C-alpha cells in the first residue's frame, strides 16, 4: 500500500520536498553534534536535559491520544469515530517515532544505545520507557496497517487483530504514565516530585493530541476530498475541552499546594516560571504565553458556539496545542533544574544547531505522518 | 525475457562491481605487518598464540574484573601475577602504540576505541621501553 504515497499532486510533492529539506538540515546539524559532542547544545552541568527531552515528553502525550479514538470506537462501538481511528493510529506512529528520535539525538553515546537491550535493568524507569514506547510503536503500525489493508481489500479486519487493538488501549496509558514516572520518582527534583505528574501527563495528552487531530481533519476537509465527519470532529472537540479543563485544573492544584504550604524549596521553581527568581526570568514570557493561550483555549472551547464553528474551533485547538507544547515541551523539563539541587541558578538557552535538530525531527515526524496519511486517505478514497 | 540484452549486461556489471574487492588487488600481495614488540621481555601476560587470537577477549575480561568486580590482579595460566591494566601493564612493555598495536589494526581495518580514554604511551625517538623499567 505504500506505493500510494508515491502518487499525488504538485502541492503534495512540494510539501514532501519541503519536509525532506528540513530533515536533511536537521541531519546535517546532528552530524555536527556527533562530531563535537552535546556541548553544541545549550545544555549544561546544571540543566542536563533540555529541548530534546522536553519535546520527547510532549510528544509522548500526543502519541497516546490515539487511544481517545480507539477506546470509544472499539470498546464502546462509537461508530462516529470509524473513519478516523486510522488517523489517530498513524499519528501515534509518527509521534512515537519522533519520541524515539529525540531520545537518540539526546544520547551522549548513541553508539552504545544497544546497551539498554544488552543489560536490561528493571529497576530503571528508562528501561521500561524503552519497552513501552517500542511496543506502542509496533502495536500501532501493526494494527493500523492490518485494518487499513482489510479496508483496501473491502473485507472486515481479521479476528486476531482484536486482542492487539484492546492491548493498545492500556498500553497507550502506559506510555505516558511511564514517562511521567521518569520525572516523578526523583527525590532531588522537587518540581517533578508530585503524585499528579502522571495524571497531568494524561490530561495534557488527551487535550493536545486530539486538538492536533482536529486541526488535521479540518485541514483535510478544506484541502482534500477527505471528510472526517462533523460529528466526529465535534466529539473530539468535546474531549479536548474536558481534557484541557482537567489539565489546567491540575496545574492550579500544583500552584495551590506549593504556595499555600509556603515551602521555599518548592516555591522557587514556580516563582522562576511566573515572575523570575533572583533576576533570572528566561522562562517567564514562555510561561505567561502558555497561560494566556490556555485561557483563550478554554474560552473558545467551553463556549459551544465557538466550539461548533470551524474558524474559531481552529483557533481554539491551536491555542490548546501550543499552550501545552510550551508547558510540557519547554517549561516542565527545564524548570526541574532551576534552581539546581544546590539552589544555584543556571539558565538554559538552546543553540542554533540544537533548534535545527529539533526542527529536523519534527519534520521527520510530519513526513512519516504525511506519507501514512496519504496511504490511508488513498485507500479510503479507492474503497469507497 | 524482455529486454534480455540490457538485463544481462546489467547483471554482468553488477557482478563485476560486487566482486571488485577481490580482483582489485590481485597480484599485489600485501605482507602481514611486522610488529615491533617494544621490549626485550620474552613473555607476555599469556603465550603469543593466545594473545594473537584472544587479546581483545582478555582485555574485555580485565575491564569487567577491574571496573565492575574490583579485582586488579591477574594470575595467568602459569601462575604469574599481573596488574590488570592496559595503560599501566601492557604499555609498560609494548611502549609504542604506532609500531605495535596500530600495525595490525590498520592492516585489518579495525579501530578499537580504547585509546579514546586510555592514554597511549608517548612516542619516543629512543629505544622503546626496556625490560628493566
Amino acid at each position, binding site marked *: 500500500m505504500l506505493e500510494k504515497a508515491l502518487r499525488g499532486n504538485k502541492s503534495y510533492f512540494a510539501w514532501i520536498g519541503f519536509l525532506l529539506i528540513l530533515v536533511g538540515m536537521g541531519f546535517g546539524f546532528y552530524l555536527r553534534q556527533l562530531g563535537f559532542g552535546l556541548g553544541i547544545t545549550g545544555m549544561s552541568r546544571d540543566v542536563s536535559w533540555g529541548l530534546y527531552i522536553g519535546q520527547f515528553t510532549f510528544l509522548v502525550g500526543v502519541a497516546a491520544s490515539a487511544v481517545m479514538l480507539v477506546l470509544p470506537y472499539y470498546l464502546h462501538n462509537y461508530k462516529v469515530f470509524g473513519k478516523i481511528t486510522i488517523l489517530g493510529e498513524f499519528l501515534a506512529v509518527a509521534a512515537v517515532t519522533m519520541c524515539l528520535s529525540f531520545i537518540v539525538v539526546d544520547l551522549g553515546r548513541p553508539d552504545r544505545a544497544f546497551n539498554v537491550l544488552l543489560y536490561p535493568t528493571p529497576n530503571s524507569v528508562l528501561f521500561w520507557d524503552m519497552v513501552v514506547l517500542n511496543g506502542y510503536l509496533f502495536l500501532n503500525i501493526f494494527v493500523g496497517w492490518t485494518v487499513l489493508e482489510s479496508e483496501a481489500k473491502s473485507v472486515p479486519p481479521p479476528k486476531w487483530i482484536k486482542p492487539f487493538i484492546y492491548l493498545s488501549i492500556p498500553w497507550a496509558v502506559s506510555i505516558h504514565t511511564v514517562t511521567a514516572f521518569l520525572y516523578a520518582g526523583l527525590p532531588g527534583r522537587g518540581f517533578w516530585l508530585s503524585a499528579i505528574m502522571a495524571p497531568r501527563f494524561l490530561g495534557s495528552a488527551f487535550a493536545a493530541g486530539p486538538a492536533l487531530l482536529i486541526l488535521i481533519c479540518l485541514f483535510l476537509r478544506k484541502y482534500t476530498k477527505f471528510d472526517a465527519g462533523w460529528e466526529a470532529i465535534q466529539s473530539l472537540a468535546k474531549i479536548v475541552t474536558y481534557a484541557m479543563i482537567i489539565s489546567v485544573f491540575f496545574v492550579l492544584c500544583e500552584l495551590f499546594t506549593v504556595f499555600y504550604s509556603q515551602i521555599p524549596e518548592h516555591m522557587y521553581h514556580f516563582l522562576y516560571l511566573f515572575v523570575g527568581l533572583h533576576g533570572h526570568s528566561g522562562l517567564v514570557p514562555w510561561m505567561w504565553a502558555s497561560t494566556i493561550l490556555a485561557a483563550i483555549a478554554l474560552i473558545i472551547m467551553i463556549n459551544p458556539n465557538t466550539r461548533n464553528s470551524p474558524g474559531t474551533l481552529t483557533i481554539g485547538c491551536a491555542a490548546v496545542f501550543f499552550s501545552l507544547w510550551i508547558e510540557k515541551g519547554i517549561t516542565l523539563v527545564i524548570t526541574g533544574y532551576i534552581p539546581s539541587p544546590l539552589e*544555584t541558578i543556571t539558565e538554559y538557552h538552546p543553540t542554533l544547531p540544537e533548534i535545527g535538530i529539533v526542527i529536523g525531527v519534527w519534520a521527520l515526524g510530519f513526513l512519516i505522518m504525511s506519507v501514512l496519511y496519504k496511504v490511508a486517505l488513498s485507500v479510503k478514497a479507492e474503497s469507497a | 525475457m524482455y529486454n534480455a540484452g540490457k538485463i544481462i549486461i546489467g547483471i554482468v556489471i553488477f557482478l563485476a562491481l560486487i566482486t571488485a574487492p577481490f580482483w582489485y588487488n590481485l597480484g599485489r600481495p600485501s605482507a602481514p605487518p611486522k610488529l615491533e614488540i617494544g621490549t626485550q621481555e620474552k613473555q607476555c601476560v599469556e603465550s603469543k598464540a593466545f594473545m594473537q587470537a584472544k587479546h581483545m577477549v582478555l582485555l574485555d575480561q580485565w575491564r569487567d574484573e577491574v571496573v565492575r568486580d574490583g579485582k586488579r590482579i591477574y594470575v595467568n595460566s602459569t601462575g604469574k601475577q599481573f596488574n590488570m591494566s592496559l595503560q599501566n601493564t601492557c604499555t609498560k612493555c609494548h611502549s609504542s602504540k604506532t609500531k605495535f598495536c596500530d600495525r595490525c589494526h590498520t592492516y585489518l581495518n579495525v579501530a578499537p576505541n580504547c585509546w579514546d580514554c586510555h592514554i597511549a604511551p608517548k612516542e619516543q625517538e629512543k629505544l622503546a621501553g626496556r625490560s628493566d623499567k
Partner: protein
Amino acid sequence: MDDTRRSFLKIAGLSMLGFGAKPVVDAVAGTGDPKFEKDSKAFNGKRWAMVVDQQKCLKAKEGCKDCVAACNSAHNIPEFNNPKDEIKWIWQTSFEHAFPGQENPYLNEYIKKSLKGLPFMVLCNHCDNPPCVRVCPVQATFRRPDGIVVMDYHRCIGCRFCMAACPYGARNLNWSDPRPFIKKENPEYPTRTRGVVEKCNFCSELLAVGKMPACVDACKEKALVFGDLEDPNSEIRELLRSRPTIQRKPQLGTRPQIYYIL
C-alpha cells in the same frame, strides 16, 4: 514423503545435542584457568565513608584548594572554566548551597564569624541508597559492596538520567572531548570520552593498592578523614563518636556517607 520428513527431524534433533557437547567438554576440561584476585596491598574496608571537619579546614591557608587540585590532577579532570561545561568531582561551595534549606540567619552569623565564612567541600556522597544507581538503565553506575558508587565509563550511554536523579548535583557529563582541556595528564589514570557521565569515585584505584584518596592525602590539616565505618576502632568512627555531624539532605533517604563537622 512423511517418512523422509520424520527421519530428517530425528537426525536434526540428534544433531542439536551436538551443540551441547562443546560447552560440557569445555567445562569438564579446564586447564590452567586464569584467576582474578584483589591486590594484597588493597584496603579491605566494608563500608567506606568520609568526614569533613570544618574546624580543621579552618586552620588551612587562605583560599586553600589542595584537595580539589589533587583530585583534578590525579584523575585528568579537564578545566573548561565555564559553568556550562565544567567538570568537578570535589569542589567548594557556601553553606547555603551545600545545605540548602538548613540555613538560618544565626547559623549564618556563626559561619561568618566563627568559621570565617569558610566554604564547604562537596562531592559525591556515595549514598547507601543511591537514586542515581536506581535510575541507570544500563547499570553503568552501580554500588559496590563496600559502599562506593562507581562509574563504568565503558558502558555509560550518556542519557543523563543519573544527573537528573542526583539530589546533590555531584555528577558531570563530558559535553565535548575533554582531552584538549586537561592541564597535565596523569599517565597512570585514563581520561574519559565525550558523552559519558563522571563523578568522584572515592579513588577506588588508589584504595585498591593500599593508598588513601587523593584529596585526603593532599589535605595538610587532615580535615578530610576517610575510613571504614564497619571498623569500630577506625579513626572515622572515633571522630563520629566524639563530634556531632550533619549530612546533606538526609530527609531524602539516600543515606549519604559524607559527614560534616561544623
